[in-house]
């Protein structure tokens, strides 16, 4: 019973169920093969392709914990990808490690600057997060187009391509990048006081102010982190396509990131957040996307299929549905007695 109480139980259960159903529908779904010391297969693709969404959702988790939202992450991805490829394109030696390093660092710094801008609007000027980040969401792609001069810049650079498609040991580089990001963010949040203070500010801003918490800095940090992570995501995305497409890079990713955060059990009301939950949420979204491709759902029906599964997963996690489930169980004489804690959740 205790495991059911854990707040990651339902998100994890939803993910596992999804994977099991996919595997039953087509056993090839779970097949992993080793070729030349590198792992291939659908599960590996999921790990590789989830990198941009994972990075963006990680930042989104921190922003949502402060009761905010960052709609600009997709646009930041477009800008950072455009910056990276434009630098490479202009460099004398696009295939050189030096130019790739410069391109990546500058692109990520641009993400940081855009995060600073968002955080400034929200924490210093007090603009509502949805509006503050909407500015960049709309303007950012324009900036990206400006950078690429309105063209889809394409570059040939083996080291740059390596970021999204290369392998380290037996697993994709992109996978190692997001794992590193998850570890770094987790350590920063839980080994410093940032996590607790972020939750306090997200749950009760006034009480936090009276307790002397510098909420401005904490909220600002969340948007900066989101900007940096979106910048890295943009670099990876551009590396995957090797083309800076201002319109399609990170298109709608902000919404998928919000979805992943919520699927991972972090409330949009702010406060308590779970990085592990977000990882599970991203995996769920990615597994679903992959299932759509793999199971051959016709493209025209894919959005509906996606939406239907999301609704089922969200319902599975809803405390209210759990309590209905329990009452039905009790009627059938198989249920467990609801605890006081659950009742409160339902009442709330």
């Amino acid at each position: 019973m205790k495991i059911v109480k854990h707040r990651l139980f339902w998100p994890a259960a939803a993910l596992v169920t999804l994977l099991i159903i996919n595997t039953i529908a087509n056993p090839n779904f779970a097949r992993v093969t080793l070729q030349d010391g590198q792992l291939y297969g659908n599960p590996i693709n999921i790990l590789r392709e989830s990198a941009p969404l994972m990075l963006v959702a990680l930042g989104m988790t921190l922003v949502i914990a402060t009761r905010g939202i960052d709609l600009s992450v997709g646009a930041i991805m477009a800008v950072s990808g455009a910056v990276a490829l434009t630098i490479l394109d202009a460099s004398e030696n696009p295939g050189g490690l030096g130019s790739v390093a410069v391109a990546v660092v500058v692109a990520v710094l641009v993400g940081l600057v855009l995060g600073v801008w968002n955080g400034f609007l929200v924490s210093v000027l007090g603009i509502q997060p949805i509006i503050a980040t909407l500015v960049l969401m709309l303007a950012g792609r324009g900036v990206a187009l400006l950078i690429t001069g309105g063209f889809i810049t394409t570059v040939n650079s083996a080291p740059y391509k390596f970021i999204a498609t290369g392998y380290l040991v037996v697993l994709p580089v992109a996978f190692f990048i997001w794992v590193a990001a998850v570890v770094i963010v987790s350590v920063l949040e839980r080994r410093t006081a940032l996590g607790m203070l972020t939750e306090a500010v997200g749950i009760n801003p006034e009480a936090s102010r009276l307790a002397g918490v510098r909420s401005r800095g904490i909220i600002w940090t969340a948007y900066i982190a989101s900007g940096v992570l979106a910048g890295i995501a943009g670099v990876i995305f551009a590396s995957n396509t090797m083309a800076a497409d201002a319109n399609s890079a990170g298109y709608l990713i902000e919404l998928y990131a919000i979805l992943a955060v919520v699927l991972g059990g972090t409330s949009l009301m702010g406060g308590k957040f779970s990085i592990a939950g977000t990882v599970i949420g991203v995996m769920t979204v990615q597994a679903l996307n992959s299932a759509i491709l793999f199971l051959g759902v016709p493209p025209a029906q894919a959005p509906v299929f996606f939406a239907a599964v999301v609704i089922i997963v969200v319902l599975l996690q809803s405390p209210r549905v759990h309590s209905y489930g329990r009452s039905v169980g009790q009627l059938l004489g198989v249920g467990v007695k609801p605890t006081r804690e659950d009742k409160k959740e339902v009442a709330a």
Partner: protein
Amino acid sequence: MPLSSPCQYGPVDAVKPIVELEGATVRFGAFTALDGVDFRMFPGEVHSLMGENGAGKSTLIKAITGALPLESGTLLIDGDPVTFPTPQAAQRAGISTVNQDVDLLANMSVAENIWLGREPRRFGLVDNRAMRHQAREVLNSLAVDIDPASILGGHSLAAQQLVAIARAISVDVKVLVLDEPTSSLDTDEVAELFRVIRDFKERGVAILFVSHFLDQVYEICDRVTVLRDGARVGEYLTTELLRIDLVQKMLGRDVAEFAARERVIEPDMPADPFLSARGITSTPGIADADVDIAAGEVLGLAGLLGSGRTELARALTGVDRPEDGILRIENREKRLNSPRQALSLGVVYSPENRRTEGLVPELSIQENIVLALQAQRGVMRRIPTARQRELVISWIDALGIRPADPDRKVRTLSGGNQQKVMLARLLALSPRLLVLDEPTRGIDVGAKVEIQNLVGDLADNGLAVVFISAELEEVLRVGDRVAVLRNGRVAETLPADSLNADILLALVAQPDLPEA
């Protein structure tokens, strides 16, 4: 169920109450907001509901206007038992409410606000012309000159208040409930409102006028019901109830045991105060308040609701920035721009609304206790987990926080234990001045006495303490000196030993004399 009232007389024997509440009980979880309350209103009468914060005034209003269901008890309208499932149902029965905060839409027109939700229609569409016309009629009946087509937000608060009343009376109104209608009005605007109220009274409308301004209650009300801690103290005619008696009934007396404290004999003003404030002004609330607090003493702040006691506490602790005045801490002039700055000077504040302004309910006891200390150390210098644990357990033991589980969410604790968590957070900072705003409100008697004793111990150990309470006896028991607040000013400061509850009551309730 007969009214167990000390006052049984209606206006005339033949007049029957239009609203009657018998044995009304409302609970929120373990907290009883209304406890078997009887209440009645007569047509053509202005009735006032009096009580301190948390006495149950708002709950009673919600109970008769359909905003809250009764757990037990009966509501009778014109002698017939009724239940209002929604506020709309109450409104259809002729009961209209104007809430404390004008809950209208500032960006819509006056006419739209008056008819919102029940717009006159023509062919299924809103008939704007009829709406404006009817709005003008309603406003005219109030003798108010406001253009119905104008945007509400452009008007003064007083005018908006009148629009809210117009909205309330645009149905056939029998009972009009006005919850703190004058809190943001100036003298002329209040006079205008009273003219409207008297007009309704003549038309036989029963009016419930809730205000914490005693002068206004005595000016406009015929009858007053006093509530305290969710129970009815009694129903009285204003002409037969002395002001001081009313205040006494509102504040009540507490009989809990209290360990008598050895009092340090203090001069009226300490020679060497830790904190000294002069001419503190912060509108609304306090005007030109002076106060001194020395290390090792408890300064009790006594005053009615609206006297500025909370505002003074907030101005002294950096929570609100006063517009004017000088604050000296250990003889050095300081400007407190934020709570953070006050905390770094050892000035800490426990807010009146601990649930909304003090605690972070979804975090654990441990996180709540270390919050301020951690905020002071900064984000990067996290207090090591083991050290946090040790600290929190020592505070749980010292203050007797129950359950003694550091990981328990603060939301699930009782009021008394929540207050202790709040105190532990502040004491963990090793403060110099502790400002406690109503630390014992809404907590059980046992915890209350514990907190009172704790305050005494802290002062004995050299802490300066400001103790605010609506209960005068508590202020007298805990305080070494008592500052009496009236109309946002410290009217006088006296040694607690020279006072008793009756004298203090007289001081608190005294109408302020015009300036000499």
